[in-house]
C-alpha cells in the first residue's frame, strides 16, 4: 500500500501525470510514489505563485506573522507523526527526527514569524540638498526553493519560512527521495489558512522538475541546498536572467584538535559531529587533525567510542539509521575501497567490524558502520572529496601554522571545529580558517541570528535573520526631497 504524494498548487492537492518510486532506506522497499512533474506542471505552479504574489506581498507583516505562527503551532501538534514519516523516508533514527529535525522546523517558522516584526532600516539626511534618504526592503517575487534529502523538513522550512515571511511566494521542489513530509506540510499550510498560491510544491527529479524551475523567467530568486556540482550548474543556467542565488553546497569540514584541549569532551562531541545523521549533514566533520602529542590516545579512544555506536532499525533506539539509498551506499563504500587501495588503515567499521541487524525487515536496508581511517595523505580523494557518509579520516599535525594551511587546503569552506583551552589560539586559528562558521570547543551550536553559509565551493550567500532579509527582499533607496 504505497503512499501516493500529490503536488500542491494554488492551495489544492493535484495529482500528477507521472510518478517515481521512493524507497524506505531501512528496508529497501518501495513505500511511496512521488510525482515526477513535467514542464507544464511546473509552469502552472509558477503561474499560481506569480498570481498570489500581489496579494501576499501586500499582506501586512502582522498578518503574515500570525499565519506563520499558526503554521508553527499546527506543525508542533503533529510532531510525532512528522518525525515518524521523516525517519521512514530518510533513514535517520526516529529519535533524531523527534528531537532535532521537526522541532527545528517548527522553530524556523516561529523565528521568522517574529523577526519580521522587528525590522529597522537606515536613513540619512543630506542637509545641504534638503533630502531624506531611507531604505525600504520590498518582496521580490516568486522564489524557487530546492531542498535536499539529508535534513528534509529542517532545510525546506529553513527556506520557506523566510521566503514567505518576507512577502514572497514560492515554488518548492523537495528532493524526490524525501518528499513525503513536505507533502504533509502542505496540509498544514492549508489548515493554517495560508492563501492559495503562496506556497506551491511540485515534486520530481532535478533534471526534470528542478531544471524547469531554475530556468523559469518568472522565478527571480533561487535558493538551493545540495551538491556543489548542481550549484555550479544553477549558476551557469541562471546567469542569462541575472537571478539572485542563495547556494548552500558541500563541505569537507575539518576538526582541529590541539594537545591542550578537553579531550573527553572533544571526543564525545567529535563523535557526534562525525556520525550524526549517518554523516549525512553538510556540517559533519570529515577530516580530523590531531596534534601529535595526543594522536595515539585520540585514535584509541575515538575508535573505541565509534565501535559503541549502535547502527540499525531507525524505529528503535539507535545512534545511526540507514543511508539514503543504494546508490549512495555504494558511493560511500567505494571511498573505503579506495582507502584500502591506497594503503590507508581502516581502524574500525566497514570491512573490519560486523553489522548486526536482528530485524529481518532490515536485511535489504542501506546500513553502514561508522568507519575511521588513518594513514591517509592530504591529497587523497578521501581528504578532498565530500563523502557524505559516516566515514572520517584522522591525521596528525605538529604546529598551529601547519595545520591551518593543511585545513585550508580544500576547495570547500563551510565550517570547522577548533579544540583548545587557549582562547587566544582559538581566536587566531578561527580567524584564519577559510570557512563560514567556526565552532570552538563545540559543534552545531546555532543561533539563527548569526550568518550561516560557506566560502569557496561551499556556496554563495549567508542565512540568518538579517542575511535572509537581504536575500529574500530587494533593498530600495528612496530619496525624498523635503526642502531645507
Amino acid at each position, binding site marked *: 500500500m*504505497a*503512499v*501516493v504524494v500529490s503536488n500542491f498548487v494554488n492551495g489544492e492537492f493535484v*495529482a500528477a501525470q507521472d510518478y517515481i518510486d521512493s524507497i524506505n532506506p531501512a528496508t529497501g522497499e518501495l513505500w511511496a510514489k512521488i510525482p515526477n512533474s513535467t514542464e507544464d506542471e511546473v509552469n502552472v505552479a509558477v503561474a499560481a505563485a506569480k498570481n498570489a504574489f500581489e496579494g501576499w506581498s501586500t499582506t501586512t507583516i502582522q498578518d503574515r506573522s500570525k499565519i506563520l505562527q499558526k503554521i508553527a503551532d499546527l506543525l508542533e501538534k*503533529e510532531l510525532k507523526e512528522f518525525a515518524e*514519516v521523516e525517519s521512514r523516508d530518510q533513514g535517520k533514527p526516529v529519535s533524531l527526527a523527534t528531537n532535532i529535525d521537526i522541532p527545528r522546523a517548527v522553530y524556523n517558522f516561529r523565528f521568522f514569524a517574529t523577526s519580521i516584526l522587528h525590522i529597522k532600516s537606515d536613513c540619512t539626511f543630506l542637509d545641504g540638498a534638503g533630502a531624506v534618504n531611507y531604505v525600504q526592503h520590498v518582496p521580490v517575487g516568486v522564489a524557487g526553493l530546492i531542498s535536499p534529502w539529508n535534513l528534509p523538513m529542517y532545510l525546506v522550512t529553513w527556506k520557506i519560512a523566510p521566503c514567505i515571511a518576507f512577502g514572497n511566494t514560492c515554488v518548492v521542489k523537495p528532493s524526490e527521495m524525501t518528499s*513525503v513530509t513536505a507533502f*504533509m506540510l502542505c496540509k*498544514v499550510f492549508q489548515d493554517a489558512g495560508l492563501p492559495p498560491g503562496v506556497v506551491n510544491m511540485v515534486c520530481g527529479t532535478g533534471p526534470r522538475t528542478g531544471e524547469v524551475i531554475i530556468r523559469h523567467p518568472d522565478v527571480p530568486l533561487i535558493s538551493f541546498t545540495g551538491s556543489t556540482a548542481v550549484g555550479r550548474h544553477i549558476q551557469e543556467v541562471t546567469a542569462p536572467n541575472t537571478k539572485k542565488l542563495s547556494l548552500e553546497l558541500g563541505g569537507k569540514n575539518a576538526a582541529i584538535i590541539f594537545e591542550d584541549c578537553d579531550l573527553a569532551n572533544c571526543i564525545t562531541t567529535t563523535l557526534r559531529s562525525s556520525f550524526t545523521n549517518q554523516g549525512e549533514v553538510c556540517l559533519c566533520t570529515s577530516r580530523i587533525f590531531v596534534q601529535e602529542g595526543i594522536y595515539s590516545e585520540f585514535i584509541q579512544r575515538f575508535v573505541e567510542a565509534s565501535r559503541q555506536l549502535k547502527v540499525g532499525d531507525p524505529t528503535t533506539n539507535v545512534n545511526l539509521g540507514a543511508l539514503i539509498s543504494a546508490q549512495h551506499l555504494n558511493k560511500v563504500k567505494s571511498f573505503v575501497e579506495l582507502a584500502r587501495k591506497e594503503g590507508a588503515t581502516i581502524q574500525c567499521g566497514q570491512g573490519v567490524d560486523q553489522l548486526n541487524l536482528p530485524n529481518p525487515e532490515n536485511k535489504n536496508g542501506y546500513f553502514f558502520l561508522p568507519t575511521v581511517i588513518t594513514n591517509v595523505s592530504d591529497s587523497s580523494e578521501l581528504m578532498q572529496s565530500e563523502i557524505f557518509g559516516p566515514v572520517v579520516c584522522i591525521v596528525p599535525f605538529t604546529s598551529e601554522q601547519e595545520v591551518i594551511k593543511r585545513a585550508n587546503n580544500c576547495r570547500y569552506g563551510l565550517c570547522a571545529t577548533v579544540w583548545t583551552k587557549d582562547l587566544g589560539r582559538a581566536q587566531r586559528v578561527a580567524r584564519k580558517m577559510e570557512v563560514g562558521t567556526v565552532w570552538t570547543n563545540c559543534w552545531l551550536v546555532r543561533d539563527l541570528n548569526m550568518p550561516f553559509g560557506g566560502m569557496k565551493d561551499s556556496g554563495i550567500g549567508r542565512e540568518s535573520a538579517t542575511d535572509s532579509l537581504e536575500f529574500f527582499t530587494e533593498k530600495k533607496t528612496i530619496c525624498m526631497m523635503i526642502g531645507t
Partner: protein
Amino acid sequence: MSVIKLLGSRSILSRLQVSRMAYSVRTASQFLHEKAYVNGKWVDAKSGKKFQVLNPANGGLMGSCPDMNAEDTQLAIQKAHTAFQFWKKSSVKERSAVLRKWFNLMMENQQELGKLITEEMGKPLKEAMGEIGYAAGFFEWFAEEARRTYGDIIPSPVDSKRLLAIKQPVGVCGLITPWNFPSAMITRKAGAAIAAGCTVVIKPAEDTPFSALVLCDLAEKAGLPPGVINVVTCSRQNTVEVGKVLCESPLVAKISFTGSTNTGKILLQQCANTVKRVSMELGGNAPFVVFDSADVDAAVMGAMACKFRVSGQTCVCANRFLVQEGIYDQFVQKLGEQMLKQLKVGDGFSEDVTQGPLINSKGVDKVDELTQDAVSRGAQLKMGGKRHSAGENYYEPTLLTDVTSEMRCFKEEIFGPVSAVIKFRTEDEAVALANASSVGLAGYFFSRDLSQIWRVAENMEVGMVAVNDGILSTVEAPFGGVKESGIGREGSKYGIDEYMNIKYICMGGIQ
C-alpha cells in the same frame, strides 16, 4: 505494517491519502477526472470556480470539480441536442456495440472504479466493486435491449390504410442522480437512454462526481461520439439552478431522477410547464415482515443483507421490521446476535469492514434524531444508539425494539444502520401497517404458507415485493415504486420504453 495503519486514520498522511494505494496497472490519476465532460471535451466551469469532494471516511480531500451553473448547463443541453440529431439516426447495432464495449471496459477496471466509489462515499470496497458489476450489467442489458425495440403492425379496419406503431427516442434526457450508488444510478438510466438513441446530460450528486466522470472516459474509449454523454458537475449551492435549467429547458425531452421524495415533487412541478416525460425513483419505507410461518433463521439472514447494505443508505433497505408475536423474541435475539457477529464499522478500504461511514455528518444527525425520538417514545435500545468513535461520519449499528407507528422511524426513511422492530399479531394488521405510508417502493416478507404468500404479495402496496429474500435488485427485473415512490420502471424489458415514444404511423391511400 502499512504506514497508514501505523500512524492511524486520524493522521495527516491518512487524511491525505486518497485511495491511491498499491496501483498495479494504472495510477489513480488516470481514473480521477477533475473536469466536467461536455461534447467530448473535458471542461471547467465558465466561472472557473471549483468545489471540493471529500472522503467521508476521514474528511480527506479527494479532489475538486468544476462548479457549474445555469449557463454551463444551457451549453451542455445545446451540445446534447445537436448530438441527438445524428445519434437518433445511428443504427441499433452500432449503439448495441458501443454499450457492449462500455460494459467490458467497466468490468476490466472493476477494482479501480470500485475504489473511486469507496473513496467518494464510503461503502466498503467489496460492496463498491459489487456495485460496479451491477452497474456494468445495465450496459450489457441495454446493449441487448437496444436491438429489440419492436413496434407493432396493427391489423387495419379498412383496406386503404396500414397502421404501424414504431418506437423512437424521446430526445435529450436530463439525468439527476444520487450519491448512494454513484455508478449504478447513472448506468441504469444512461444505458437505457443511449440504447434508445437519446443523448444525456447528467448531473451527479455533489458528493460523488468522480464515478460519473470516469464513465465518460470509458465511453470515449468505447467509441461513444461527442455530445451523447455529458456530465455537468456542481456544488450543493448550484444544484437548484442547474436542476431547474434541465427541467425547464424546451430542448430537454425527459427528466429521470433518483433521490428524495421531496426533491422529486419539486422537479415534477418544474417539468410541468414543458410537459416533459419523467421517471422518478423516490423514497421508500420498506416494510420487512416476518410471519410466524417463516423460517426465522433465513429471515434473520435476509434481514441483515437487506438492512445493512451501504450502511442502510439505500431506498430499498428494510426500514421497518414487522415481526409476528409468535416468533418476535426469537427474531430479535437472533438479529442482535448477527448484528454483533457480522458488522464491523470503519474505513471502507480496510480489509474486514462491512459498515463504512455515512455520507456526511448531517446524515448521522438525522439517524441519531430518529433513534432518540424512538427511545423517548418508549422504544427499547438493545444496542448502539450513538455515534461511532471511528469518526464524525460514523454511526453505531443500532437495534430498537417495541417500536410503534407513532415514532418518526416508522414514518420516515432512516437511511442508516438502525433496525427498528415492531410486533404485530395478525396478517391483516401486518399488511395494514406495511401499507400505512405514502410511499411504496420495496416490501419484503418471510413466510412458508403458500396462500399467505399470494395474499400478502398481492396486498402489499409497493412496486417490488421480495418473498423469502432480502435482496431483489437485478437488471432483468422492473425496478420502481408506486404511490409517492415514483413514476416509471428501470431495468427489465420495460426500462428502455421510458426513453422512447410510440409513434403511430397511419399509411393511407393504398389501392
